[in-house]
């Protein structure tokens, strides 16, 4: 049992967990943030993607103890003041989700993807970047559409702000 402290969605949190506890288990079981999902055992599906110190990370591929001291954002922390993040809004507007299980990981991946590419995305790039996120419902068609729409909106907003 180790005591682990980190900042999650803007709040400092601590918890005791087995050394073998994965970050995703810590988030789900210790913190009760069940929006981050587990869809496989082999770091393939991406349902557990969160942001750790600003980068997207599969939270099943890292121990909770390794995340000690870091700053984590989960899907629950993405919408500010009750307003959907532009990526969340684009997923809704473009029907980029069906059962919703892969959705938190898809959204967190997409936010980081748009940030890294500074909103300059095309369909082939989005599809290649989604290699680590599996969806069984949508055939990806509307997920790709949603990410492109969000990227356009966010880069438009960024340009306008500059």
């Amino acid at each position, binding site marked *: 049992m180790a005591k682990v402290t980190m900042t999650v969605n803007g709040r400092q949190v601590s918890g005791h967990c087995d050394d073998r506890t994965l970050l995703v288990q810590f988030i789900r079981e210790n913190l009760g943030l069940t929006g981050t999902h587990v869809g496989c055992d082999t770091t393939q599906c991406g349902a557990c993607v969160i942001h750790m110190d600003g980068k997207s990370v599969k939270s099943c591929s890292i121990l909770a103890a390794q995340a000690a001291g870091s700053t984590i954002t989960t899907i629950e922390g993405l919408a500010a003041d009750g307003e959907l993040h532009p990526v969340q809004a684009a997923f809704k507007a473009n029907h980029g989700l069906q059962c919703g299980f892969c959705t938190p990981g898809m959204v967190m991946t997409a936010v980081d993807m748009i940030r890294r590419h500074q909103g300059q995305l095309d369909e082939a790039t989005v*599809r290649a970047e989604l290699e680590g996120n599996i969806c069984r419902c949508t055939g990806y068609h509307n997920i790709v559409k949603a990410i492109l729409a969000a990227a356009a909106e966010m880069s438009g907003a960024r340009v306008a702000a500059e």
Partner: protein
Amino acid sequence: MGVEGIGARVARKEDKRFLTGKGRYTDDMSVPGMKYAVFVRSPHAHAKIVKVDASAARGMPGVIGVLDGKQLLADGIGNLICGWMIHSKDGSPMKMGAWRPLAHETVRYVGDAVAIVVADSVAEARDAAEAVVVEYRELPVVIDATRALEAGQPQLHPEAPNNLIFDWQIGDEAATDTAIAAAAHVTEVTIHNNRLSPNPMEPRAALGIYDAGDDHYTCYTTSQNPHVARLVMSAFYNVAPENKLRVIAPDVGGGFGSKIYIYPEEIVCLWASKRTGVPVKWTSDRTEAFLTDAHGRDHVSKVKMAFDANNRIIGLKVDTVANLGAYMSLFSSAVPTYLYATLLSGQYAIPAIHANVRTVYTNTAPVDAYRGAGRPEATYLLERTMETAARELGVSPAELRRVNFIRSFPHQTPVIMNYDAGDYEASLEAAMKAADWNGFAARKAEAERRGMKRGIGMSCYIEACGIAPSAAVGSLGAGVGLWESAEVRVNAVGTIEVLTGSHSHGQGHETTFAQLVADRFGVPLDSVNIVHGDTDKVQMGMGTYGSRSGAVGMSAVVKALDKVEAKAKKIAAHLMEADESDIVIENGELKVAGTDKAVPWFQMALAAYTAHNLPAGMEPGLKEGAFYDPANFTFPAGCYICEVEVDPDTGRTKIVQFVAADDFGNIINPMIVEGQVHGGLAQGIGQALLEGVHYDASGQLLTASYMDYAMPRADDLPSFQVSTSNTPCPNNPLGIKGCGEAGAIGSPPALINAITDAIGNNALTMPATPQKVWAAAHAAK
């Protein structure tokens, strides 16, 4: 239509909770005192259990209890069953072997559950499960269904000699043989339909809660049909009587058929909760899902299609062997029979059809309905055969289909189905136009210059949805009726709850069902809530599968809305001293037609509940229920065209374009319908290009993770071109046919027809991996 009514492209009401991490799936549930379960599973595909020794495991840290199959048997928990009776052609009933929720004598596939460990944490339960020592005596194994029928093979169940479950037939064999003998041309092919794993992204899970105070059980579970789960667990498995068992299927992360069935784990978690005195939660990991979720497909068929001199099909003869795995899952017997062979007429007028189907036990996971369920197998068989025939006869694939299309309705096929409506030419035309079929030769020549082999293929599918009427399916062997229920509750302030026996696990019912209400009463979508998935809230329902929620579930809502509307009009007429026949409902008001007199919807609702001023003799309140039993199946149909480029150096196939032109009847929300098609196409393309369950000869599953089983990923797929041209279904009040499975049904043959066109070799099986395509392309040289 209004902006939120029938036909409107309304964004989904349920999206916000999924997008903000507030979805509530079974594994998200937590109750006081809850403990965690891990199952001990057989590592052997076939073995006798000599001894289960849990003494070491019981002493491990955190362990609450270890329970095995003998204890389960002693407590009277029953066998798992298959709920659809099929009789062999000799009249004998299907040979159902015993399936224990926890095996105590024999294990028959890798993953068969043997014991359950309950502990304070999943990790401790897993440690203890590894310490349970099960002594096995290994038995010989058979994996392949055709081989399992041969003499001298390992026998799985004493009830089923030669592993044969049933030997069933449909159609007129003599007439078909006569047609084949008289044919100008007979196309003969052997068709393999590969075994698949459904893979909803949410793994199965169950939380069993026994309340000793009330002798009552609650089960949270990942189910497409919680009421059927309660019925089966009560009536057959002796878990508890229905009034002592509540089943809740909260948010469910996809199903695709695999969450229809009642599996051992939910039964055992409920039983273990009583035995251990704590709530017990089990969540499958992905490897367990590959091992134990019911698989789909796995057919081998020999086909003869006979043509006259004018290229008209005069007979079709099919001999199919279907692998059902180690046990008969809940609907397994219906899939290769009434959901498959009854669709063998496709979109074509075929005067004589005969199909023989043998279903077989093997040492593999149980096989049951997976998106499409029998209809993909029928469509793949027919459309690959049609393509082969077109090539042999030297006619274009479109021409051969046109010559044989059914053109007048209703149309009675030789295999039970009576098609009610359709326009197959329209969807063929639409697809060919969208795909620029006529421009293909130029595109092929251009690809050739780049050293690429370009091919184009089509598939014309028909399917049957909304299986019904109940009396008819009962006569065919179904153990349940296939109606649906709905209840519409208008609250005193005018807001509305619709309770439905359908279950949404991605289909968007919370939006589309509400659109029906908004359309009818002109009330805002936000004032309507859809309630589903809880046996304590919804009285009874048959759940969601077989693309039935629109055609059957929504029709039940319409019937209940009719009753609400009638009573609302009576109340409004009374309030306004008008004749009820003059009342119209528009924009949330009940108006006297042709006057300016109106009562707002909420005021009428309040009047129903204050009951101060109701028509004489009228009961207070406004709540109506309905059960809807359809008059016939519905028959969605369409044409899919796929164009590919194959790299002859690597065998890699790139999908250049994929066009879907469907006839779904009337549509409630086009955005959601398109999403259903996209998802179905991805699964069909996955079957054709990527996916396949593989066991080795000893019955070990080689494809038990996402590193071994190729799931379609975003960069495997193109964007799709989808459209609809609709003929309303005449047999339900909304004219809906259903759209959930079409994509998975129609797409595999279009893709394989395109690849074989590209490489000039018709001998190719699914999945068409680069290795297979390369070999086939080079063999063609």
